[in-house]
């Protein structure tokens, strides 16, 4: 009986071991891919038209969902925030509350999640489909590196779009809060804006927020292009890859957000 337990334990350990090795090998593979993409980037960026095209597809086409979501998030924040603040007579701090929440956290994170599901999955599907229809192989055989022509422009298009989208999200959110707080509820506009200005620091809050959105942009874009490039060249493979992109990107954003917040916002005040 002991030997049965023993061998069971050994097989469990062996499975954990091989699983870990697989994960480590996967990390190594992703890293090598990432390095190759970065190496091909100068070639891609010098062909500005390719990158501009990708900024259009990932950034401009995400505008509607980002702007609308930002507006609604800001409005809800204002409603909920007012409900709590007015109990302590601090309703005039609504502007600060909303601005800080958006600029520090909700702007980068929520727009990152929306970007991952809209643009990230589209990028993965595009690249995966090109792989499945042998377009990437065709390009290789025509002596054109697909990393430079297909992958890198999409990668940089995502990185450039993300911080812009996050800023637009926060801006629309603040505007939404203004609509609800000042216009609807009746908080004094002057107090709303001046408290906000006093409470939000450029370097501490806004720049940190921008740094976060850039980091998220790098993570989401890299995952999106990788999953597309790595997808199994079948219809099923492409759909699996797009799902993986959204899931992995979301987890990455939330995890990185925690790490960055710990480093950035220590000893607040």
């Amino acid at each position, binding site marked *: 009986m002991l030997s049965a337990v023993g061998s069971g334990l050994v097989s469990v350990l062996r499975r954990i071991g091989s699983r870990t090795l697989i994960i480590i090998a996967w990390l190594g593979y992703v890293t090598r891919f990432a390095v190759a993409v970065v190496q091909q980037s100068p070639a891609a960026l010098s062909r500005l038209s390719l990158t501009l095209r990708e900024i259009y597809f990932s950034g401009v086409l995400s505008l509607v969902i980002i702007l609308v979501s930002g507006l609604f998030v800001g409005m809800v924040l204002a409603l909920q925030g007012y409900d709590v603040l007015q109990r302590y007579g601090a309703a005039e701090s609504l502007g600060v509350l909303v601005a800080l929440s958006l600029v520090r956290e909700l702007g980068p994170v929520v727009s990152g999640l929306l970007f991952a599901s809209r643009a990230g999955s589209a990028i993965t599907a595009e690249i995966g489909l090109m792989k499945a229809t042998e377009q990437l192989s065709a390009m290789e055989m025509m002596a054109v590196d697909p990393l430079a022509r297909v992958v890198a422009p999409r990668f940089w298009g995502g990185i450039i779009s993300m911080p812009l989208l996050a800023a637009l999200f926060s801006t629309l959110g603040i505007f939404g809060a203004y609509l609800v707080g000042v216009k609807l509820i009746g908080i004094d506009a002057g107090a709303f804006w001046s408290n906000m200005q006093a409470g939000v620091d450029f370097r501490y809050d*806004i720049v940190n927020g921008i740094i976060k959105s850039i980091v998220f942009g790098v993570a989401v874009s890299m995952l999106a292009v990788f999953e597309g490039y790595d997808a199994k060249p079948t219809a099923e493979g492409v759909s699996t890859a797009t799902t993986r992109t959204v899931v992995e990107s979301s987890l990455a954003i939330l995890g990185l957000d925690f790490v960055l917040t710990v480093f950035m916002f220590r000893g607040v005040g």
Partner: protein
Amino acid sequence: MNLNRSALDLWVGVFVALGIGAILFLALKVGNLIDFASAPGYRLEARFDNIGGLKARAPVKAAGVVVGRVESIKLDSATYQAVVTLRIEPGYQFTKDTIASILTSGLLGDVYIGLDPGGDSQMLADGGTVSKTQSGIVLEKLIGQFLFDKAAQGGAPK
């Protein structure tokens, strides 16, 4: 999906312009970039036994009007006093016997520094020190003082 080149350029341009505009909006109207960047004015120093809830960037007011900001707060390890650096906007002069007090706007409001000028003919210059200060109120000490007084009162007669 054969997009017209010029239409694409236009949209990307609009997008980038909007994005940068949003960043600028956040920086200027929401944050305090201008305050921070254009920080002309001169410095004054003030020492307090206790700064209460005073924070950096808190306003400095005279007669309720904002005349500057708190730039930094440090502890003097020799005298164990708080050393507060104030940045006063140019155009405002304060007498050498000005009193700097740490006040609270409202019961749960923000803490700020109030300046009460005196009658001295000489003005404070850049780098000068406000010698008369009034420390911030620490609520616990106030309550403790109140209870102590009450206890002392209650114990005396009888």
